């Protein structure tokens, strides 16, 4: 009953500090908004109120804050940001709980490991690119009728299912000391497509991160996916692969879906070692 605890001690209003940025490479600036308290608010409804008010604490008219969101029930992964310094989804960040941590104010910042597009919107394409690098898919023959997939033990399903709940939200890599921001500036004479290509090749040299490593285990565990396990392990052994993991274990502690990321990383480590040895003997 967290939401209803200490109802009497709630303030009549609270301050929201938002780190805003007009575009890539621009300086950041703090903006303050005063929001009337209501029970059961989340950070999304706070941002909606900020947009409707369109006025800062100092009475200045301002543009609505840009932020990403879609499902508002913590399954799409879009609205990840730093709320009171901690990486999480804005939709499931409940104001009542936040005010208990930090009375009278809350602070919103964009994720720090991805290029800021504007305000709280960041570009997380690097994470999707990582899924391509590790071939995170089942390479079926085709989409014609070939009967059911392989039978699967309940135990295996119960290992795969949690891994498959990963919504590529980015919390794990935001918290990871080894995952460094990669931000390129677009050249004036460059088309969007050329810029995207240059970004992709920069991403391909940088650390994959826990989410993508865990996905390799999801597909290597599947009987059909297992047939291509070697290709995924090769990708894990390349530049920015699993050896970049420093075992800080921050990833698993911030994952909103409590995916056993460090277990995946440990398994991936063992599989790559065995893969390396077997490759060496097969030469």
């Amino acid at each position, binding site marked *: 009953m967290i939401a209803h605890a200490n109802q009497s001690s709630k303030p009549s209003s609270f301050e929201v500090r938002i780190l805003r940025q*007009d575009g890539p490479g621009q300086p950041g600036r703090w903006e303050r908004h005063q929001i009337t308290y209501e029970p059961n608010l989340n950070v999304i409804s706070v941002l909606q109120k900020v947009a409707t008010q*369109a006025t800062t604490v100092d009475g200045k008219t301002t543009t609505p804050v*840009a932020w990403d969101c879609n499902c508002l029930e913590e*399954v799409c992964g879009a609205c990840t940001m730093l709320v009171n310094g901690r990486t999480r989804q804005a939709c499931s960040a409940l104001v009542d709980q936040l005010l208990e941590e930090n009375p009278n104010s809350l602070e919103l910042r964009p994720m720090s490991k991805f290029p800021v597009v*504007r305000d709280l919107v960041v570009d997380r394409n690097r994470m999707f690119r990582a899924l391509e690098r590790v071939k995170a898919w089942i390479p079926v023959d085709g*989409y014609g009728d070939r009967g059911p997939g392989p039978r699967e*033990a309940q135990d295996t399903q119960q290992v795969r*299912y949690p891994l498959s709940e990963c919504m590529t939200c980015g919390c794990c890599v935001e918290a990871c000391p080894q995952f460094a921001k990669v931000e390129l500036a677009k050249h004036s004479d460059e088309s969007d497509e050329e810029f995207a290509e240059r970004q992709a090749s920069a991403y391909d040299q940088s650390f994959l991160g826990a989410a993508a490593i865990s996905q390799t285990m999801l597909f290597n565990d599947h009987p059909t996916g297992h047939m291509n396990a070697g290709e995924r392990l090769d990708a894990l052994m390349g530049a920015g692969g699993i050896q970049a993991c420093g075992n800080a274990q921050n990833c698993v502690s911030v994952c909103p879906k409590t995916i056993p990321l460090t277990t995946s990383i440990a398994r991936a480590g063992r599989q790559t070692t065995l893969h390396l040895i077997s490759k060496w003997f097969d030469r």
Partner: protein
Amino acid sequence: MTQQRVLVVGGGLAGLAAVMKLAEQGIAVDCMSLTPVKRSHSVCAQGGINSVNELTRQQGDNEWLHLDDTVYGGDFLQHQPPVKEMAYAAPGIIDLMDRLGVPFNRTPEGFRDQRRFGGTLYKRTAFAGATTGQQLLYALDEQVRRWHSAGLVEMYEGWDYLSPVIDEEGRCRGAIAQNLVTMEIRAFPADAVVLATGGCGLIYGRSTMSMACNGSAASRSVQAGAKYANGECIQVHPTAIPGADKLRLMSESARGEGGRVWVPRKAHDSREPSEISEAERYYFLEERYPAYGNLVPRDIATREIFNVCVNEGLSVEADRQCVYLDLTHISRAELDRKLGGILHIYEKFQGVDPREVPMKIFPAVHYSMGGLWADYVRSAEGGLEPGAPQNHQTNIPGLYAIGECDYQYHGGNRLGANSLLSCIFTGLFVAPCIENMLASLPDSAHDEKYNTLLRGQRAVKQLEHDALLKRTGGRENPYVIHQELGDVMTKAATVVRNNDQLTSALATVAELAERTANCSLSDTGNWTNQNVMFTKALRDMFPIAKAILQGALARDECRGAHYKPEFEMPGIDTDDPAEKRRQAEKWCDAFEEKNRKWLKTTIATFDKSGEPSLSYEEVDTSLIPPRPRLYGLVGAEIIEEVWKQRQAGHDGSANGAKVGGTSAVAAS
């Protein structure tokens, strides 16, 4: 000619299924989406996906009965050939998703497990925990990523579809879209444009739908001449968690796994639910519908919950409408294995553990059965003609609609776990149809001769955009208008509808539409301007909102989710056998008359200013003759008996023999 390309707008289940199938056929595809496709609204679908399976077959189930349940549940408002094709394709679709690695729940022997969903007596629903939509979407997302990696698919994530490009002959040659970050407006030449843009829940302000589900793509297409069908058929899901920003879905699977809906018999009983004895609990769905119990079709569950709170005054809380959805009699281990995802959502957003304390839920707008009108070609067997270019094509040649944004399949009410099926089915099925359409075209929209057309229409959208940014003077706030629109729509056009309220809602909505023209933007920049994109989406909500209200106002009957008490047909109110029969005969007369008048698709066409006008189209009910939907009606047995005699009497055709299936089980 240059290479032909297809543009798929929308990256949910339907869009991605179409993309991957087209790519497999060797067709170059551009895929456009408001969000990274992996974040599409399909992730919110929880409970599962329906198909006949080996176990249900052994209990007498077959594809025909899946078709029957679907059209009976939908109150016969959908054309039957597409539904038939879908029901027969369903087992193969589940097999395919299984092969793609979806972690479906398993039986101890390793087979796919199934659960029961509403509106059927069979366990047809395959599921992956309580995040089946997410799991299915990810499987398709992975396949599309594979094709993208192979160079056959171009992704345009973060683009908003502004309009189709239509040439002088009325054929669609591409689309105009705007980048949400750079605000660039670009023409996308395409030889077929496939809309897979989902529902329009945002018109109701708060719903179970995601923020991308604003109906703008459908609206922009109808304003360019596409027709909109059965707009008034909006599903209100019986069980959602009320919230300030969103009404979060609590899946039907909670009831499929044994969840029970109840209220204390004493109004606003303030005791903890665990202290209220069985005798003091009112399990109103189980009492009123013994056959289906908590798994009656959604429209019925919704009306009963609404009724018990609003009319009978038995809401759990005094100042807020809600009923209990109780899982506490099921073991924690089983709950976590089968429903973990949704219980997690409840716990996270309400701060209460639903394994220990019954959940508090209330109905919420959930799904658009209506949508863009789309064509089909009936095969000799009564299904769809595979590969016919007309299948799923709108009235604009070259413009297709699939998934939730088309109007086929669900009629007046959608059965749970049929939406994931209809999305994947339409995406896969439309691909060969498009391939054949492309083969019939002598040229490509990428040919130079279409440059002028595409450039011209792009320029129109650019001018509109620039004018909107420069607009001064107005003082209206688009977010405030959106709230007001949501309030009026929710009040007038959800669970209970009446003509006075609909008429006044139409006037209010027209007023709001005018006020929207005076919105001033608080952001006039040209970089990630969400303010201007929201204002455009808001402006485009009005044509669809008007079509919903007008369709509802005109339809003077009850059908599926569309419920007007004024036109409700009362049950039998006598015990005298002769009088009972007489009333049943009269009831059946009225039922026949109602079908003559209203068993029709509502078609809205729009003028340049977005005003809809309505016309009607016959529904193809040639496979399963319409029969009364009698769930829970007093006197259902005698009405059913009379109805069957009538059918046997004046319908000696082959179809007549199939009347009754199994799902005509009437509960009283």
